[in-house]
């Protein structure tokens, strides 16, 4: 068997198959980040000064530092906590925290965009916090939130590529591995880029369409 193998369909297939790990990681981070983001956003607009301060600090920390450093800290931090180092878990945890902070900030804006009269009316009707949020504020906020949330999902999918640096074999890492075997960086990273593009571009177009439709309906 030759030392350098050519880049052909089997190699492309291996790279394409690695995309499932990119999708899985994005899905986990998006689901976890959705839950964390909701809690962060609610804390951010709550009446408690402590909760507000805590969530603001959390958001500032994660928006003011590189995602790569967040991955490293979780990765090496697990070792300190006495857990076995596992790139898969580290990447999922770091990306979940990252997504929680960003979605928290995006959704805070959406909640605050709901006119305050809505909340006051709900209070006047005797709705307590949970019902007020659940039936009055969040349904209206979620309508505004869809477009920027899909936009963030694109950012998150691209962000999963950094998991390659801590050694988790997803799309980008598989590309590196195949490149080391084939030495055809143009074809390899070109293919990797095309696969990411196929994942992200439809979402970008969708986000733009929804934003456009929303801004038109808002004018009306």
């Amino acid at each position, binding site marked *: 068997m030759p030392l350098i193998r050519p880049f052909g369909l089997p190699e492309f297939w291996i790279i394409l198959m690695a995309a499932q790990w990119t999708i899985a990681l994005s899905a986990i981070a998006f689901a976890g980040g959705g839950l964390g983001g909701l809690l962060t956003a609610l804390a951010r607009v709550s009446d408690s000064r402590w909760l507000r301060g805590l969530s603001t600090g959390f958001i*500032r*920390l994660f928006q*003011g*530092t*590189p*995602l*790569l*450093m*967040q991955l*490293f*800290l979780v990765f*090496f*931090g697990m*070792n*300190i906590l*006495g857990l076995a180092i596992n790139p898969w878990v580290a990447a999922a945890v770091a990306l979940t925290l990252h997504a929680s902070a960003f979605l928290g900030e995006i959704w805070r804006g959406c909640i605050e965009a709901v006119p305050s009269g809505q909340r006051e009316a709900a209070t006047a009707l005797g709705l307590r916090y949970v019902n007020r949020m659940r039936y009055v504020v969040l349904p209206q906020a979620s309508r505004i939130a869809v477009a920027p949330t899909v936009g963030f999902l*694109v950012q998150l999918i*691209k*962000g999963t*590529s*950094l998991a*390659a*640096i801590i050694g988790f074999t997803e799309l*980008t890492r598989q*590309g*590196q591995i195949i*490149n080391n075997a084939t030495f*055809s*960086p*143009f074809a390899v*990273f*070109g293919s*990797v*880029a095309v696969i*990411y*593009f196929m994942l*992200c*571009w439809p979402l*970008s177009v969708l986000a733009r369409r929804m934003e456009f439709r929303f801004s038109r309906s808002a004018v009306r």
Partner: protein
Amino acid sequence: MYQFNFAPVFAGFDQLAMGAWLTIQLSVAAMVIGLIVSILCAAGKTSGITPLRFVIDVYIEVIRNTPFLVQIFFIFFGLPSLGLRLTPNSAALLALVINFGAYGTEIIRAGIESIQKGQVEAGTALGLSKLQIFRYIVVKPALRTVYPALTSQFIYLMLTSSVVSAISADDLAAAGNNLQSQTFASFEVYIVITLMYLVMSTGFSAIFAVIEKAAFKYPLSR
């Protein structure tokens, strides 16, 4: 129980400071060159020449829908096969410029579109010269419109630039990787570096806020 050991990290702080300085230089250079690219592309997009617009659209969509890490691998490992060999630092700068250009174009275009035709006509009616109209009615309000988006894009660029450590450029994150492999104090090294990034991003935000107050102070309405 884990014993934290920050001593070797502070012993190697010189390396980290050098790395931070290169990160700032890279980010500022990428922003300045990237802005020129953005202005040219925004002009091209509003020009009405269809093939040119199409090419610029493809550029923007490709860059915005692929990870920066893949872009930099493509440039650093891919371009040599075309005969263009780059040092890690220049490949990093090129990748950051190309990346920033795509995001900057949309920001600049929004600024251009925010100037209404009536404003320019009002300037003409008031007898302002072409240069005065361009300076006071087009550039300054457009800059004010795009300023917040542009500055947050710069911060984002600076944080993204940590990824260039993957091709061993000499930036802050790479300085951290080196120090980490010398000292084995991984967690301590990355905590310090993360805080350095945090200081840089909040520092730049503060500077930008001061500049905004000083430069765009004139009232919108009286």
